[in-house]
């Protein structure tokens, strides 16, 4: 699974973004989007196109974690959303790996020989690494979002942080990366 995570201000200004890959089931944490050359552009485009749905859901459902809210079939991209009470949006795009025909290369066979346990869980259709809409994935994303939220609150509590300011702290980036590794 490849992930693109972004934080948007209430007025849709981008505050933070990061791409990473799954660390579950023996994943190496590296993003491998299906269209590597245009991935950045594509990911932002897909996330942007889901914002109308987020805005609608925002007023029908008071939860902070809105779970999987949108799918963009052309890129096999799934979007999950988390809303802070102060209107900031956390959006996570997930893209499952390529179908087996193209992905079963030398790299993955090496993996399965050294980590047999990992390879069996990889086969499971509900695993976080493979299925973007399974209950396990919803739960893992929730944990990820909660952990990012904690770090986000620490960021905005500083008196020098003003709403809409880009989050440039390398420590924050490290924390988000760690949360991704831990839960996704």
């Amino acid at each position, binding site marked *: 699974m490849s992930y693109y995570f*972004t934080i*948007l201000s*209430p007025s*849709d*200004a*981008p505050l933070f*973004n*990061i*791409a*990473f890959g799954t660390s579950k089931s023996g994943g*190496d*944490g*590296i*993003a491998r989007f299906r269209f590597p050359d245009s*991935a*950045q*552009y594509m990911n*932002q*485009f897909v*996330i*942007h196109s889901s*914002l109308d749905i987020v805005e609608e859901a*925002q*007023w*029908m459902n*008071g*939860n*902070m*974690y809105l779970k999987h809210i949108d799918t963009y079939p052309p890129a096999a991209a799934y979007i999950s959303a988390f*809303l*802070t*009470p*102060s*209107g900031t949006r956390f959006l996570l795009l997930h893209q499952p790996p390529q179908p087996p025909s193209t992905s079963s290369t030398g790299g993955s066979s090496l993996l399965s020989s050294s980590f047999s346990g990992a390879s069996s869980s990889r086969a499971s259709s509900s695993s976080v690494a493979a299925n973007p809409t399974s209950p396990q994935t919803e739960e893992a994303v929730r944990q990820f979002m*909660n952990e990012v*939220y*904690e*770090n*986000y*609150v*620490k*960021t*905005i*509590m*500083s008196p020098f942080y*003003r*709403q809409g300011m*880009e989050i*440039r*702290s*390398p*420590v*924050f*980036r*490290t*924390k988000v*990366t760690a949360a991704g590794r831990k839960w996704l």
Partner: protein
Amino acid sequence: MSQHPRHSAMLSISTSNSNLANAGADKQQPSQNVSTPTQSSSPGLRVPSNRKTIYDRHLNRSRTAELSRASFAFLFSEMVTYAQRRVTGIQDLEKRLNEQGYPLGLRLLDLLFYRTMSSSTSSSLSSSSTSSSPPNRPLRILPLLHLIHGPLWRLLFQRSADALEHSVSPETPNEYMITDNDPLVNTYISVPREMSMLNCAAFVAGIIEGVCDGCGFEAKVSAHNQPTEMWPGRTVFLLRFGDSVMEREKVLERAGVR
């Protein structure tokens, strides 16, 4: 090519941030990553050798910490005095105090929700719910007002506000009032006679306004002296919600959202 304004805003960050490249590079050299932590090699703030940053401090650490009221009173009156030097007239001064409270409201809102989420046993933000499920963002005016009257007031002043009322006038259905009989911010602040109309609780009004705006309820909030014999410092916070809020309120009412 016509681009959605929202989309172009999103792309503006991408040039300055080569995240894709970074993410890959970091992972490919795990050994180097361990020996040289990212903080020291990348741009950003210097950190002490124990590497403690705001991210290492638990958000609940000062939750029950106390300081003297006097220290607040001294700081707050310096803040008012300083603001006074840069404005002309009471209205200006109250506006400035309001503006200083506003960003605090935004911060407190997130802090409140974080704390409610992170405490498994404690009180939920909504008064009716007793479960430990995550708190809900207020979607309607009433839960928002309860959030302010209860949890926000308790976080700031260690007690709830004294009253919550809706305007009785059919002309102003968008007006609500929250009353504090004895506001802390006025307790130690002696206002010069020529400024007897000043209410320093304008600062608190700003905090409330920040909370309302943060939650998506555009509002103007002002503080008014309404002394009674028993409560000479009694202050009424008047909340006036914008038209868009009132219209949404009707839509949500019809949709059965509470």
